[in-house]
Each structure stands twice: as structure tokens, then as C-alpha cells.
């Protein structure tokens, strides 16, 4: 091509000087196209998660039984169709506990749990305020928080028992409530035939 031009001009002043600048517009276009592609295909948002620790199988029996005091125990039963029941104490006392029906709303189970856990929630809130005002450091905060949880003598201990008909959302919801209400001690335990009987009786009575 260059030679052709030279020929055309008839050797007037030598070969034409080409600018060394390249038009970068297509390259920019390409760059942004690829950026768009990567932005759309990547997951910038990491999914949220809830950490769950369960006791190992061999220890579960004795520990659960020895630790839970009847005065502090609350058993929450998750039933089908988003129904929820709870009772205080444990059933080993011989007397059948009275089932209270509730729901997942903030005025249902949460209200009850907060009422029962007033002391601890107050302490935790004070601690959080301290952290917010930079009085204590992050590590100190988590240390004190776990201390509070282990030392809380009056705090309720919650046993979560889900029936086979309840769904995963119910379980997550109730675990959520545990966090909201600062319940440090809770466990997911298998439902017993007695509990099923109680639910059955309660549902029948309601109808």
C-alpha cells in the first residue's frame, strides 16, 4: 500500500509519513465488553450463612439430660403448616407440661423468649454499647460475650424439637430467634413420642 502511494505522488518529497497514533476506540470497546461480561458472571455477593454446632452423638444423651434444669428449660415444638408450640420445664417431672401455641412473629415466640431472657439481653446490650463506643476491643468483646453466655444462670435453655412435617424454613426461623433473643444454650434434639402426643392433643382441643 505504501509503495503504491509513493508511486502515485511521483516521488514528491519521499514516502508519506504515517501517524504513529492508533485509534484505541475499538480496544476500549472490547475492554468494557469484557468487564461487563465478568461483572455479570461473577458472584460478588457471598451467600450468608448461619453457623451451627451440634454435640457429637456419643455424648449427647448424658449431657443433655444432666445440664438442662427443669426451671430453665423451654421446649419448642415445630409442627406442620408453620405451627409452633412451646412448654416450660421438662416432661420428666411426671406431670404432662402444658402446651402453649405460638407463632414465628415478633409478638409470638420472640416476645416470650425475650421476657424470659431479660437479664442476659440487658447485659449483652450493655456490652454491645461498650463496643460501639470503642470502650472495649473486638477480642475483649467476644471473650466477654462468651463468658456472659456460660455464666448466665437464669437464662433459658431451649430445646428445639421439630416434627417430620415441619420444613427447613421453620428450623432456620427458630435458630434466628435464638440469635435475636441472645439465647446461648440451645440444642436441636429429636422429638419424642410424648411430644407428638402433646401436639396431637393440643390440635384436637383447638378444633
Amino acid at each position: 500500500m505504501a509503495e503504491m502511494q509513493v508511486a502515485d505522488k511521483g516521488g514528491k518529497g519521499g514516502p508519506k509519513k504515517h501517524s504513529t497514533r492508533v485509534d484505541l476506540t475499538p480496544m476500549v470497546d472490547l475492554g468494557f465488553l469484557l468487564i461487563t461480561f465478568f461483572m455479570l458472571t461473577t458472584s460478588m455477593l457471598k451467600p450468608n450463612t448461619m453457623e451451627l454446632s451440634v454435640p457429637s452423638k456419643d455424648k449427647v444423651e448424658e449431657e443433655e439430660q444432666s445440664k438442662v434444669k427443669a426451671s430453665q428449660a423451654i421446649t419448642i415444638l415445630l409442627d406442620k403448616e408453620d405451627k409452633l408450640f412451646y412448654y416450660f420445664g421438662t416432661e420428666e417431672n411426671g406431670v404432662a407440661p402444658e402446651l402453649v401455641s405460638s407463632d414465628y412473629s415478633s409478638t409470638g415466640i420472640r416476645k416470650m423468649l425475650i421476657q424470659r431472657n431479660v437479664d442476659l439481653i440487658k447485659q449483652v446490650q450493655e456490652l454491645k454499647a461498650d463496643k460501639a463506643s470503642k470502650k472495649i476491643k473486638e477480642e475483649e468483646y467476644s471473650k466477654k460475650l462468651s463468658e456472659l453466655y456460660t455464666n448466665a444462670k437464669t437464662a433459658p435453655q431451649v430445646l428445639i424439637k421439630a416434627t417430620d412435617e415441619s420444613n427447613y424454613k421453620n428450623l432456620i426461623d427458630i435458630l434466628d430467634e435464638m440469635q435475636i433473643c441472645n439465647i446461648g444454650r440451645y440444642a436441636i434434639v429429636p422429638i419424642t413420642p410424648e411430644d407428638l402426643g402433646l401436639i396431637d392433643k393440643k390440635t384436637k382441643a383447638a378444633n
Partner: protein
Amino acid sequence: MPKVKVPRKSTTVDMTAMCDVAFLLLTFFMLTSNFVAKEPIVVAVPSSISEIKIEERDMATVLIDNEGKVFFGLDAQGDRRELLANLGKVYSINFTEKELTEFSKIGMSGVPITKMQDFLKLPPEQRDAKEAAIGIPADSIDNQFKYWMKTAKQVNPKLRIAIKSDSKTPYKVIKKVMGTLQDLRENRYNLITSLEQVKN
């Protein structure tokens, strides 16, 4: 009056700087990105107030759909390859190199081990079909899921477990999976949720 000379400016802008920016961003996105893993089934995870973010590396994801089908996924390709090779040993099935490579490309799979070879022969677009994605058996009669988990843990001992399940999954299935994990002494795991929308 002397004429005021207005210098004529070229309308072409120097694109070099813009090009630099574009490629800088491109590099950033390429390096920070991890691709959205394709899941064989769509699950609607329940929402919670938990704001802990999940780790990206060394995750084993147990996906459970609302019918109770169980799927299993590992994030590293090498781990997946080794998982299938070791699983083959447990069930005395010899997987060929080609099958292992094919399997390592699938992020999440839910096929009984006996049907794995047929499954890997299918073209990729047919794998998510209802007949193919039938889930890993996880019941007490044939708890293959247990071996999947156990083998995965042997392949990568640092593995953390996340359960991702649909809101409507019956607790019965969750109980089975959690029970299996408990049997394997996996006592800490994550439940994947989405962030709760604040209702005012």
C-alpha cells in the same frame, strides 16, 4: 481590528487513558471473580438475620431441594476428581480417565454411584433433566451420601460443610442429612441463608 484567532481543536480524543482504565478494571474483575457455580436444581433459601459470610475455599456444599433430593458439590476441581476416584474404590467401580475428567467439570452432582457412568456419558445439557438429576441416596437403607462426605473429607481434611436447602424441604430430610453428618463426627457446619429484608 486584528482577527482573534480561534485555534482549531481536533475532535479526536486520546483513548489511551480510557483504555488503561478499562483494562485495569478488567484485570481486577478477572482476578477477584469466582464464577457462579451452576447448580442442578434451583433452591429458594430461607432468610435469616445472620450476616456471617461464607468462606470461598474448601467448601463442601450439600444442596437439598424441596423434594428431598440431595446433591453434593466441592469447590476445587482437583478434589472432585479425587473424590470420584476414591468413591469408585469404595464401590469397586473403575472410572476411566475420561470419566474422571468429565466429573471434575461438574460443580455439583446428585447421582447414585451405580448410575454415575451412564450419567457421565450424557451430553452436558441433558444432565440437569429431571430423569438425570435424581439425587444421592441418603436414607438409612443405602446411605451413599455418607460415603461421599467421608471420602470428600479424606480428600481434603480442611473441608468445611455448608447445607443449602430450600425453604420448603421437609425437616425429615434435613434430619437425615444432619444425622449422617453427626455420625461422621462433623459437628460444625454452616446453613446457607439469604439476608432478611427489614420490614418497617
